[in-house]
Structure formats: structure tokens, C-alpha cells
């Protein structure tokens, strides 16, 4: 189908964009890369009265590295992330996950900020931010605020970002000593995951400082503190994983046309086992 009609605005500055969002009180929808929003509009699941194209906002672009973190502008496309010279050394988890995020032509348009703002439960980027302990920088009419990824994803397509706020950037702490794991189960390469996991550990023998974020399992990307605690201090071998797996029951697994909730719960365990096995190999 085709998208229903709307007003189209392309503000030239961040301040102007936020003023438009404030003025339209929830009727305006920011357009980033459009790789999720456009399908939703074509399906008529989304029907914003005003579409606010963020493509002219230079404030939302660019990747900046300091001694302690990497700041990625919200309108940075997946393609630009993949092409960034330091991606493999500074953000190895994202480097490993990127080829799994949709397809080449989608990655050429899709943005990190767009994915986080939409917060699709099956998308990789929210889980990556959780695993990496990222901070999300928001700007609204009352200025800037910084929200840890742990507090950002609040439910089904629901985030801490208010209707009159925009994601400006994400800040990811550098962790040169950390180890990372990633695995997702899909029907076709690049499709939304039936279950997936992203892992950060500060050390492997024994496992410690674990941040384990699941996606494609419930209403949002999420960590399971009891699972992290159960694996912490273990070798991550088969017995340790078997002992920790019951902690996954804390997740309210969701079923859909493709996969039942029960199968999804099983897949989450499979993804975890495979990701850990790869990390420890």
C-alpha cells in the first residue's frame, strides 16, 4: 500500500526541529532513515499528520572518539558505522552485529538513532546499546538530558524519549579489555531475529562484568539480572549455562505468527549458548 497523506517539513537546525515537534504535540513524527517508519506508513500502522525529515540536521551527524568513549550522532547510517576506520578496534561488538542488521540497501539508509527511537523489540541496536552500557543523549525544549540505555527502553515501541524530544547521539564507553559475544537466530539472513543476544564481559576466565542483552524475545530489548548473576564467576561451560538457564524464565516471551513463545524461550537459550561458546573458543 501507499502511505496516507501528511505534511512534510525539513528543518535546517536542531532547534527548529524541536520547535516543530513541540508545536505539533505528538502529531509530528521525526523521519530519520525511514527504513522502519516508511514500511509502517505504507502499511498504515503509522499515520503521522506531520513528517519531520531530520536529514538536513548536521548536528546529528558524525562519529567522535575521545579517550574514554565513542559518540555517534543519531543520524549516522549503519553504512557509515561499518565504514568508520575504528569500528573493529573500538566497537567490535557493533562490527560483528552490523552485517546481521537487515540488508545492504537498508543499511545504506537506516540510522542508529532511528532504530533506538523506534525501539522495535526484534531490532539489534537497542540490545547492543544495553550490552555496551551506552548513554542516549536527548534534546527537547528544556535542553539536553542523558539517559542510560538501561532506562531507555520501556516497553513495546516505548522509550524514555518524549514526543517533543529527539535523540541527538549515543555515547558508548570504550572497553579495550572487554570481550564480546553476539548471536541471532533468523529465518533468512538479515531478517528480524526470532531470538538474539549481545554480550559484554570484562573478563572470560572466570566470566565477570557480564552485560547480556536479549532481543526478539519479548516486548523490548532487555537484560536479565538473575542470568548475569548466575553466570558471573563461572567458566561459562555447559554445566554453568545449564544451571543459569532457568533465570530466563524472568522474560515474558512473546509468540507471533512465526514463532511461539515456548519456541522463542528455547531459541533464547540456544542463542546464549552459541554466543558464549564463540566468546570462549
Amino acid at each position, binding site marked *: 500500500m*501507499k502511505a496516507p497523506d501528511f505534511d512534510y517539513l525539513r528543518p535546517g537546525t536542531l532547534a527548529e526541529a524541536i520547535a516543530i515537534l513541540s508545536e505539533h504535540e505528538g502529531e509530528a513524527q521525526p*523521519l530519520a532513515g525511514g527504513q522502519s517508519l516508511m514500511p509502517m506508513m505504507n502499511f498504515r500502522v503509522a499515520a503521522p499528520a506531520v513528517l519531520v525529515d531530520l536529514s538536513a540536521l548536521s548536528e546529528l551527524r558524525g562519529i567522535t572518539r575521545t579517550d574514554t568513549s565513542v559518540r555517534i550522532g543519531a543520524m549516522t547510517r549503519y553504512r557509515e558505522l561499518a565504514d568508520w576506520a575504528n569500528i573493529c578496534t573500538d566497537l567490535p561488538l557493533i562490527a560483528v552485529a552490523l552485517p546481521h542488521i537487515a540488508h545492504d540497501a537498508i543499511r545504506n539508509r537506516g540510522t542508529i538513532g532511528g532504530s533506538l527511537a523506534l525501539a522495535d523489540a526484534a531490532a539489534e541496536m537497542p540490545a547492543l546499546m544495553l550490552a555496551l552500557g551506552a548513554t542516549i543523549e536527548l534534546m527537547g525544549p528544556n535542553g539536553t538530558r542523558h539517559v542510560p540505555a538501561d532506562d531507555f527502553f520501556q516497553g513495546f515501541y516505548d522509550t524514555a524519549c518524549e514526543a517533543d524530544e529527539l535523540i541527538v547521539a549515543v555515547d558508548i564507553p570504550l572497553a579495550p579489555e572487554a570481550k564480546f559475544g553476539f548471536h541471532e537466530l533468523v529465518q533468512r539472513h538479515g531478517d528480524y531475529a526470532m531470538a538474539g543476544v549481545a554480550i559484554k564481559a570484562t573478563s572470560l576466565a572466570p566470566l565477570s562484568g557480564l552485560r547480556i542483552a536479549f532481543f526478539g524475545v519479548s516486548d523490548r530489548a532487555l537484560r536479565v539480572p538473575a542470568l548475569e548473576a548466575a553466570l558471573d564467576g563461572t567458566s561459562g561451560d555447559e554445566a554453568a549455562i545449564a544451571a543459569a538457564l532457568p533465570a530466563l524464565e524472568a522474560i515474558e516471551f512473546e509468540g507471533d505468527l512465526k514463532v511461539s513463545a515456548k519456541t522463542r524461550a528455547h531459541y533464547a537459550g540456544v542463542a546464549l549458548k552459541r554466543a558464549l561458546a564463540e566468546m570462549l573458543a
Partner: protein
Amino acid sequence: MSKTKDISLTVNGEVLTANVPVRMNLVDFLRHEAGLTGSHVGCEHGVCGACTIEVNSDTVRGCLMLAVQADGATVTTIEGLADSGRSAALIAAFTRRNALQCGFCTPGMLASAIAYVEGGGIADKQAIRDHISGNYCRCTGYQSVVDAIHDVVTEGASA
């Protein structure tokens, strides 16, 4: 009555100006307004890849981009890729390998394949499969498509 906006863009080397409904997606503009019907419209939600085109040298889904977003952009459709000769080796390989039956997916498949070949893709069938995973073909079962792309990469390496 749809809201409209004036746009100007370069399509296959030619500057086009038009007043378009803001809700019109880019591939519909190319097909219906510019008369370039080589790009096909399949699913309209970014899954099938039949509408794959090039915008500012990157392959994109023509159904997931509005025509107004292409204001000022340089667009190359399958017609432009053929006219410039960029798709010649792939077209020859697709023909030789019988890599199409109905042909509906072929323009998008070729556009994706060109990005792979020109982007330095390697002669590895799994890597080729991963790259074209965003393009559906309901006739060939992909084997012949993968073989055709593999041929072109191999030819390029030996050329």
C-alpha cells in the same frame, strides 16, 4: 488532494524537476512520472528488493524513500546502469546462467549484484548469498543467480 512539493534531482544523468505529492515514494516517481519502469514495485515494505536503485552511489529501496527525500540527489536506475555499461557483465552472466525466469526480481537483483561486484565483493558463494539476501526471487531458487554473480567476480579477478 495530496500535499505537494517541488523537487529537482538527477536521474541517469538527466536533471528532472517536478512537483510531487509528498507521500509519493521514489520508485513510484521514477516509474510513473519519469517513465522509468525498469525498477519494479513488489512488496512496498522493503522486504523483496525488486525496487532496488542507486541514490548518491548507494543502493537503496526505492519504496522506502520518498521522492521529496531525493530532492537534490543523484539517482541511477537499472536503465542508467545498463546505458553506462555497468551492468553489462552481469547481464551476460545472468543470461548465460539462466539466472532469471519471469524477470520480475532481475532489475533489483542486478542493482544489488553491481554493489557487490563494484564494492570489492569476493568470489565466495556464501558471501554472495548474504549480500543478495535482501532480494527475493521466486523462480530460480537463487543457485543460478549466485553462480552468475560468482562468475562476474571471478572474471573480474582474472581480467
